[in-house]
């Protein structure tokens, strides 16, 4: 296999050098280079569709993508869209056992899954790698018979229509998507899959005959069969390793392959006895989740890996010295390689927002039950691997900081931030995060052991499915509903062309009164409160359709085997099985909403500078066409108090807004018995379609412009520097109570992005000061911080000379993306973002 060409000299026009991988062993370098060969590689991990052979059989689960509005067009309007049809056309038929169609749906799905993984997909070892587990990007048949398929299609259309309507009227998006969970990997690494198998069998045997014949029995039989798949697959990989070992003339490689075969004969079925086996076990059981869900890994996260693997790392590397640290890093290097091949799924589509931020998250460091720090040598080894492999997208690290985080860790983190354009990890803040976990009902004695999924979403490990990205309401919509007495225009221009009748505003929200007639701010505020509560309810109603649809039709027994609660209850992870069950409502456009309310309060009610009618007229015209509208827009943008400046006037109202919308989420449950909870992630919606669908807002923003991003202030509105915006973020999350205890209204966490100029970190003295800023953030800030160290002129250069910046990583709302792979608009936004130049 060829390796990538390394550019030693920068092209003449390109002015800046970007971070490069360094100190990689030849093996790790080979694997990294191989990954970046992309479509030029002989081997790849593209989607592989498989069918039962029935005419109407389908593979593509479009409900996974209701939260990706950019691709709605490909999902179809009235029937199957192009994604579904083309995958069906390409699908390879799987020979089914004779009694297949007499089995229950969960069992059928597991039988099909097993057939594909063992018999259809080849088991391959790639180059000099040390971990088996190559191809896993499947598109599996839904395993429905003709009658079921018809009903499925009908219900699918109903779910689609409801979410399209919600979206096209500017409410946001919602859908039951996959991934976004930390399975109980730690338990399986330490106890082996056989423990799960035995537990499931024991549970099944305790069922009454009636239970065995019902859905509980169906699910458990499927889980029991699922529990053996990792063992059977490992055996096949072991055979391949032995074959390669026999063929190998290189004595070292021969021994490696033989050891890999031995490892695979032990794990994942038995407990891992070595560090190498532990990492092998982790990778194999992880990739099988991706394969079962036919979802290439977004948010399927590892949890606190530096804790889970620590005992065996300590034994092998430190105490018994069975392997040296460099070899441990090579094992991890193979793991890094495999994680990234998830992106092969749509490798021919190119680098876009969808393929640039899956988020198989690894949580590092953090506190223990008594606030003590749990960083260990493995934490630092993993950070070294990240540093040496960067820039690279997966696995995405998230470093937990807290009051007792050691200086050593902060030194390394600040150094890594300095070296890279976008910090190669997110920072998560324990005290604020744990307060949120406690708020949602996790006992205090457990909450310290939370970890993050996807980007920054806080969940518990091994027993918690919190549907962390499933509902994404555009909160700015609530103020528009208030201004229009609940009427909503179809804001999707494409849909207007298709359905011209819908151009007229229709009553979608509540009738809260004609805003022009409100006499006082209190009247306006009360109406807004009703509308935002309505919006949460409407979001949940829309979401529940796809949630119930998925629960009934697409169980995942293999994943259920690895999530505590599913076996004991006999219920699938998608149907209410996990011990901890939440669905997260991720508020989008928070600062746009807050700033809009602040502007209305000041100009319409406090100062009476203009009326609601005048404001609405100006908004309808995008503040263009009349001098008075231009002046009004300028006033709204510049003279109203703004969230993000540590200004009490703005932040008190911002905190009220936060409390009202977030508390409302807790009033609802799904039909599958998941509790709704709030968070603020807002992925790319603030810059994508939600922004495009939102007309002018009372904060002076014109129609189609970006909304604010997650919990960050409106772009450019924070003018008091990083400490002020940090204090504001902490304040609106609830600040601290009378006893100094942290409050956090958003248990899921809240994404906060800050961009700093490189000059802030130019010498050791300033690095010390930046550490102090981070320690201040622990006290005053939010749950999650992503740091960009960017020079605006560098980004402008990257826009003009993209070829020189292919590996330039920037952080965009909690996920890493390559700067040149994101759209021009978002690029411009990043450039325009206020640079905190010191």
């Amino acid at each position, binding site marked *: 296999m060829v390796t990538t060409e390394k550019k030693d000299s920068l092209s003449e026009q390109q002015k800046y050098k970007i971070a490069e991988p360094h100190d990689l062993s030849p093996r790790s370098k080979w694997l990294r280079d191989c990954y970046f060969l992309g479509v030029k590689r002989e081997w790849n991990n593209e989607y592989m569709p498989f069918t039962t052979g029935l005419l109407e059989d389908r593979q593509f689960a479009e409900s996974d993508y209701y939260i990706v509005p950019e691709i709605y067009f490909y999902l179809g309007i009235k029937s199957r869209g192009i994604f579904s049809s083309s995958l069906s056309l390409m699908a390879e038929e799987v020979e089914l056992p004779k009694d297949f169609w007499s089995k229950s749906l969960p069992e059928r799905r597991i039988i099909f899954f097993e057939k594909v993984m063992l018999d259809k997909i080849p088991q391959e070892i790639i180059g000099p790698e040390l971990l088996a587990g190559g191809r896993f990007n499947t598109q599996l048949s839904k395993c429905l018979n003709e009658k079921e398929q018809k009903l499925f299609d009908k219900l699918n259309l109903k779910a689609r229509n409801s979410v399209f309507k919600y979206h096209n009227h500017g409410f946001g998006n919602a859908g039951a998507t996959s991934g976004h969970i930390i399975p109980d990997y730690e338990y399986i690494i330490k106890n082996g899959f056989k423990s799960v198998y035995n537990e499931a069998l024991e549970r099944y045997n305790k069922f009454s005959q009636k239970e065995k014949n019902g859905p509980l029995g169906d699910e458990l039989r499927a889980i029991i069969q699922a529990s053996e798949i990792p063992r059977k697959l490992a055996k096949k990989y072991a055979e391949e390793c032995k074959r390669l070992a026999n063929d190998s003339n290189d004595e070292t490689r021969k021994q490696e392959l033989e050891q890999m075969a031995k490892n695979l004969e032990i794990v994942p079925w038995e407990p891992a006895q070595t560090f190498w086996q532990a990492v092998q076990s982790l990778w194999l059981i992880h990739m099988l989740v991706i394969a079962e869900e036919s979802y290439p890994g977004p948010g399927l996260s590892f949890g606190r890996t530096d804790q889970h693997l620590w005992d065996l790392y300590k034994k092998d590397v430190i105490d018994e010295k069975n392997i040296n640290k460099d070899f441990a890093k090579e094992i991890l290097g193979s793991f890094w390689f495999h994680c990234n091949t998830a992106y092969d799924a749509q490798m021919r589509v190119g680098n876009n927002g969808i393929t640039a931020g899956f988020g198989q998250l690894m949580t590092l460091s953090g506190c223990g039950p008594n606030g003590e720090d749990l960083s260990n040598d493995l934490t630092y080894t993993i950070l070294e691997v990240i540093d040496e492999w960067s820039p690279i997208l997966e696995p995405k690290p998230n470093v937990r900081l807290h009051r007792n985080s050691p200086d050593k860790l902060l030194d390394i983190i600040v150094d890594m931030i300095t070296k890279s354009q976008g910090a190669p990890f997110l920072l998560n803040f324990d005290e604020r995060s744990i307060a949120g976990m406690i708020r949602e009902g996790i006992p205090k004695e457990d909450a310290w052991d939370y970890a993050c999924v996807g980007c920054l979403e806080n969940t518990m490990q091994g027993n918690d499915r919190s549907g962390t990205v499933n509902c994404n309401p555009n909160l700015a919509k609530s103020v528009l509903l208030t201004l229009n007495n609940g009427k909503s225009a179809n804001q999707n221009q494409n849909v207007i062309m298709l359905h011209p009748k819908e151009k007229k505003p229709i009553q979608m929200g509540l009738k809260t009164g004609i805003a022009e007639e409100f006499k006082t701010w209190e009247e306006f505020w009360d109406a807004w409160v009703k509308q935002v509560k309505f919006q949460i309810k409407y979001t949940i109603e829309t979401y529940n359709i796809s949630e119930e649809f998925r629960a009934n039709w697409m169980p995942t027994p293999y994943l259920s085997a690895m999530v505590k609660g599913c076996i004991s209850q006999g219920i699938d992870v998608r149907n209410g099985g996990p011990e901890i069950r939440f669905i997260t409502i991720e508020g989008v456009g928070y600062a746009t909403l807050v700033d809009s309310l602040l502007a209305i309060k000041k100009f319409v009610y406090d100062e009476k500078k203009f009326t609601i009618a005048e404001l609405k007229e100006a908004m309808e015209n995008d503040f263009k066409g009349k001098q008075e509208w231009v002046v009004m827009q*300028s006033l709204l943008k510049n003279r109203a108090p703004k969230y993000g400046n540590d200004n009490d006037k703005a932040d008190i109202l911002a905190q009220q807004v936060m409390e009202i919308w977030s508390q409302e989420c807790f009033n609802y449950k799904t039909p599958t018995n998941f509790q709704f909870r709030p968070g603020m992630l807002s992925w790319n919606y603030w810059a994508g379609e939600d922004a495009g669908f939102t007309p002018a807002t009372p904060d002076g923003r014109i129609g189609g412009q970006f909304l604010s991003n997650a919990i960050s202030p409106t772009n450019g509105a924070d003018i008091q520097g990083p400490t002020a915006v940090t204090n504001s973020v902490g304040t609106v999350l609830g600040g601290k109570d009378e006893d100094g205890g942290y409050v956090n209204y958003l248990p899921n966490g809240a994404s906060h992005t800050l961009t700093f100029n490189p000059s802030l970190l130019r010498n050791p003295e300033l690095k010390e000061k930046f550490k*102090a800023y981070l320690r*201040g953030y622990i006290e005053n800030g939010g749950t999650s911080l992503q740091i960009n160290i960017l020079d605006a002129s560098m980004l402008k250069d990257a826009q003009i000379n993209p070829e020189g910046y292919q590996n330039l990583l920037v952080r965009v709302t909690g996920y890493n993306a390559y700067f040149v792979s994101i759209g021009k608009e978002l690029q411009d936004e990043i450039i325009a973002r206020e640079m905190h130049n010191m």
Partner: protein
Amino acid sequence: MANSMTGNIFEIQKMSTEDGPGLRTTVFFKKCNLRCAWCHNPESFYPEPSIQWFSVRCIGCGTCLKVCPDHAIQMKNDGIHIDRQLCSQCGICVENCPGTALRKLGEEISLDDLYKIVEKDAAYYLNSKNGGITVSGGEAALQPEFTAKFLQKCKENGFHTALDTCGFVSKKNLEKIIPFVDLILYDLKEMDPTKHKEFTSQSNEIILENAIWILNKIKGTKKKMWVRTPLIPEFTATKENIQEIGKFIVEKLENKIDRWDILAFNNLAKDKYHRMDLPYPCESLELFTSEEMDKFLQIAKETGVKNVRWTGLTQK
């Protein structure tokens, strides 16, 4: 107890990293008795508030013309012009400008209000080594009662305190403030008295005398002194000047200061002068390169002063 005493300030800079140790908030006070040719805070020259027009923020609506009671504002092809003779600095135009293109720099702030603002960043001061508050300007020591009370309150709450001074103030004023500061950032700009007068409008005798006086005053206490020297091309940035300042530090200050910072000239104030309709004496000066600053640093180090550093903006 509430304190309604007021100070005349023109800016509060949070997360300040360049005015003393740790993370700080720097409060800039109005008024100064020197007129340094390179001053990058010309808005501090006069006690009255100064009204400035920021062209990039102006939408050209003409509101200011209508509301100005002094008829001091005109709109010309190149933007807004304020007749400084007519303008009474009433600030009505500022209050009515939709784009915040007109800004009033300078306000009377009560001690309590000021403290409330700086207190918000306590977590950053207390988590950094000696982080806290710096009073700068202009010349904070020209408002001694307010400055002293303010710093006292900061100290009582555990914040590190620093006074950034040009030294051209009376000992009586310094006497009031020094008990409440942990660090004195002391400017030594030019050793030649004639040149000093030429560059800053005043001779340097009082400044040098005060430096020695302060050093003797803080001797044996935990208080520290840093000397700062702005290196301005065509003005202070000469080998002889650096050597003379070094000699002064070693001999007259007994080499007992904690640190000597030599500060590279920056041209960031250019726009400020234009906005205030003042001539900028450093208009044509270029930034140093980092190599040049390294050379100056070497000269400074050779004088025998301990802990010399350079900082500031340089050419790329």
